[in-house]
């Protein structure tokens, strides 16, 4: 990957991903409403929300919170650009962790009890999903003999044939990363009584708008990870990947609507259990078979 192709990918991702992410969020809200026998908001509702938040009065709780959220957004964009430019998978993981770190800093900086509780839970969530992400990088290397994502387009058969158990574990962890129920612990949309808004309680106006946009970038990136498992040398595999991404996201919406939020202990235990069992079985199989 040379510099020019990376810059092109960066600009393309920075411009296209928010549109995609916003539409995904809008579709998500409509489907959720239909599941609950409601009509739901218009498809473009997430864009209206962000536009409204941007126009609101600016009253940040301190001088740093806006900077932290902006950095979190920028690193999320960088991580996505590295991924979609076909760059190094480890690089994507590290940059994304930095983005998560800045988000936690933003939540902690307000020193409010609800934001503090949300931030602590966000750290626990990172600890819960990170082992699988690292195992996924290792498995990716063992299956394709490279950390470069661009290699996937030259494989003879898709990664799902080599590392299907890692894919299942990723599906489990994806619910944490997309902040969906039963693992919507740090930023719960439905936990008014318990947490107000968790980590984003003290975000307001433009800071909240930036956070919403960051979520759009993140969801596009994570769905890209899902698609990665289905891409191989055949040209039609891109459509296969797209179809599988849509199915997986629909599954996530169903899970979101059908499960109550669990305690963080349960989330931690289950995600590590799933990661270690499925991940290691798959790695050993790759190594010796």
């Amino acid at each position, binding site marked *: 990957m040379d510099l020019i192709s990376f810059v092109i990918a960066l600009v393309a991702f920075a411009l296209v991903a928010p549109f995609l992410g916003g539409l995904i969020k809008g579709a998500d*809200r409509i489907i959720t*409403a239909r599941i*609950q*026998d*409601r*009509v*739901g*908001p*218009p498809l473009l*509702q997430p*864009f*209206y*929300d962000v*536009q*409204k938040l941007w*126009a*609101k*009065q*600016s*009253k940040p709780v301190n001088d740093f919170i806006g900077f932290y959220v902006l950095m979190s957004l920028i690193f999320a964009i960088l991580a996505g650009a590295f991924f979609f430019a076909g760059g190094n998978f480890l690089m994507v993981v590290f940059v994304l962790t930095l983005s998560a770190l800045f988000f936690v800093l933003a939540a902690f900086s307000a020193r409010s009890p609800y934001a503090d509780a949300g931030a602590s839970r966000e750290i626990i969530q990172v600890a819960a999903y990170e082992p699988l992400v690292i195992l996924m990088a290792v498995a990716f290397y063992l299956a394709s003999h490279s950390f470069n994502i661009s290699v996937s387009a030259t494989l003879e058969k898709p990664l799902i044939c080599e590392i299907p158990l890692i894919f299942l574990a990723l599906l489990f962890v994806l619910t944490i990363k997309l902040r969906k129920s039963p693992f919507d612990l740090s930023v719960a949309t439905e936990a*008014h*009584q318990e947490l*107000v*808004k968790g980590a984003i*309680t*003290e*975000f*307001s*106006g433009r800071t*909240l708008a930036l956070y919403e946009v960051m979520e759009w970038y993140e969801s596009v990136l994570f769905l890209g990870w899902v698609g990665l498992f289905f891409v191989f040398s055949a040209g039609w595999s891109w459509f296969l990947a797209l179809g599988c991404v849509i199915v997986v996201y629909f599954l996530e919406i169903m899970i979101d609507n059908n499960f109550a939020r669990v305690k963080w202990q349960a989330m931690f235990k289950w995600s590590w259990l799933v990661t270690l069992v499925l991940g290691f079985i798959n790695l050993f199989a790759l190594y010796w078979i």
Partner: protein
Amino acid sequence: MSSTSKSPWVIHYDASSCNGCDIEVLAALTPLYDVERFGIVNTGNPKHADIFLVTGSVNDRCRPVIQQIYDQMLEPKVVVAVGACACTGGVFRDCYNIEGGADSAIPVDVYAPGCAVRPETIIDAVVQGLGILEQKRAALKAAKKAKR
């Protein structure tokens, strides 16, 4: 019509209501009325909300709470007094501990009468509040321009 009136997020506070109006507020979120059609979301957080729904009459205990929630909301914001008690004090008006409706604590923009208020009335009041929200947004924008 700008995005401000397409995405009004509400916060609901029960001053000293009998819960009749509170149930009707929540009824507006159910499949029958489904206010999310208009982008209305019930946030539990004053910092995220645009419209403040107050139910019940105001007494000495809840006045500071109402004022604090109001102060934490960012402009542009609109206050809707929901139900007879929040409008005027209702049947509790002459009680020794009651100071009056929501407007005895904070400036109220829209009054939604009824005991208990009907969900249709709440939705009408919020929609009327959107017009005021829009005016306030325009005023805020003009003030920002004048500052420059």
